[in-house]
């Protein structure tokens, strides 16, 4: 078998703290090829921390260790920062969970996308503007001309997410780490954005790590799913088989889901079992 795009073995991430607390991520291992792999798991289970560790986006004092963290054969753990910068945003792109927060507040949306175009496609400014507009159209922003002139605080939640996605599309990375990329989108736009991501994976041979809380979405969109609990991967399963998951935590998640077609008065609340933390 060919080398996977991304290979992670025994990844552990610890944030420095006064108190001795358990690592935010511990002993996480997985491979990612040209496919869509979902990560689900409760809030605080370490999903974003995993994504940021791969990008080496954590504050300097964070302790990241792994037996292996390789991207296209390069060791991400030991790569000098200068080379890491060449990978970040170019070969690996991340769509962050809080889109508005990650945009520059004092620059218009259009300027920021154009800047990305200039960086990646080396187009002159005027052409970059046109290209930026084209990208906003591609992510189905209505009236891109107007939106280009807005500052991040003037765009709606869903528009902010799509601005981030358009910048990432320009960079044409080999691996996308998407952290809740569609949570602020209405269902029709979400469908369109997912179709774009789907196309990139199928046609451009890209790998996608898709962090999401939306079980229905992961089930219908991804190929495989990793389920995280308290910093560990407790189960890995083909997305289509999610309903047949075995781990009591995964079962609990499925039962906590509100359903449009089978409404219930109260939602089942997960009863956490300390045994789940001991290991998978």
């Amino acid at each position, binding site marked *: 078998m060919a080398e996977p795009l991304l290979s992670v073995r025994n990844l552990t991430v610890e*944030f420095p703290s006064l108190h001795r607390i358990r690592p935010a991520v511990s002993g996480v291992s997985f491979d990612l090829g040209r496919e869509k792999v979902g990560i*689900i*798991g*409760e*809030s*605080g*289970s370490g999903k*974003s921390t995993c994504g940021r560790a791969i990008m080496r986006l954590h504050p300097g004092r964070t302790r990241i260790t792994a037996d292996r963290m390789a991207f296209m054969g390069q060791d991400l753990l030991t790569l000098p920062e200068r080379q890491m910068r060449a990978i970040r945003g170019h070969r690996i792109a991340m769509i962050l*969970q*809080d889109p*508005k*927060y990650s945009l520059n507040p004092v620059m218009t949306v259009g300027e920021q996308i154009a800047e990305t175009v200039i960086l990646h496609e080396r187009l002159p400014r005027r052409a970059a503007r046109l290209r930026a507009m084209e990208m906003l159209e591609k992510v189905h*922003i*209505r009236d891109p001309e*107007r939106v280009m002139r807005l500052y991040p605080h*003037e*765009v*709606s*939640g*869903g*528009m*902010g997410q*799509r601005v981030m996605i358009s910048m990432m599309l320009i960079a044409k990375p080999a691996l996308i780490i998407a952290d*809740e990329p569609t*949570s*602020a*989108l*209405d*269902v*029709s*736009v*979400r*469908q369109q954005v*997912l*179709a774009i991501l*789907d*196309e990139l994976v*199928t046609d451009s041979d890209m790998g996608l790590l898709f962090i999401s*809380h*939306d*079980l*229905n*979405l992961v*089930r*219908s*969109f991804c190929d495989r799913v990793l389920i995280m609990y308290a910093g560990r991967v407790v189960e890995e399963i083909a997305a289509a088989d999610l309903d047949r998951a075995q781990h009591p935590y995964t079962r*609990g*998640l499925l039962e*906590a*889901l*509100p*359903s*449009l*077609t089978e*409404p219930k008065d*109260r*939602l*089942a*609340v*997960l009863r956490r079992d300390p045994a789940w933390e001991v290991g998978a």
Partner: protein
Amino acid sequence: MIEVKDLHVSFGANHVVRGVDMTVAAGECFGLVGESGCGKSTVLGAIAGRVKRWQGSITAAGSALRPERRTLAQLRLQQMVFQDPFGSLHPRHTIGRALSEPLEIHGIGDREARIEQALDRVGLPRRFRFRYPHQLSGGQRQRVAIARALILEPKVLLLDEPTSALDVSIQAEILNLLKDLRQQQGLTYVLVSHDMAVVAHLSDRIAVMQNGTFVEVAPRAAMISGDLSHPYTRMLREGSLGYRPTEKEAL
């Protein structure tokens, strides 16, 4: 509790909200769904007093609201929980400070106890009051935002995507919590969400918004059974059931 008549909001030449009418009874949960960018957050913002320029009339708990000025009592009456939990918390203020701030503004005493109670209510450990927003996960931040909205004991909660950053188990807890609070304290909600199952779970009636106006207001039962009149509403309902590859890929 809330009555909105012929509400219009423009940002420059962009006419965003184009004549919205809605009446929400005390203790009711009114859902609001619709296309991204159609003006849902703007409607909530106008009711909350964050959007300061609008035309039409808004009445809350019997008192008429004016676009530019609000009394403290009018502000306290309704609290908003935002879509973007990071943006709504000051990055250099501890959680404790974020929670005590509204109490200070409104001159409310007994702060320590209220802060602890607010954290308890949303299921966060009390020691989190010493943390900063960047030290919390997305879902933990959203729980702080809900705690902050509850701390003033408002009558109306304006909820803008309150659970879209939460995992389903915490979402279930928050939805149950919102249901309980409404029952115990008779709170009134206006709830914006893209997740139709979430909206249908809490709301008595659901307004479907497109291009700045309501195209349909459906009772909960109709949303569940699919007995809907507007094609856009039907499309939203269908789409909420999962991802469908487009025709191109199906070929």
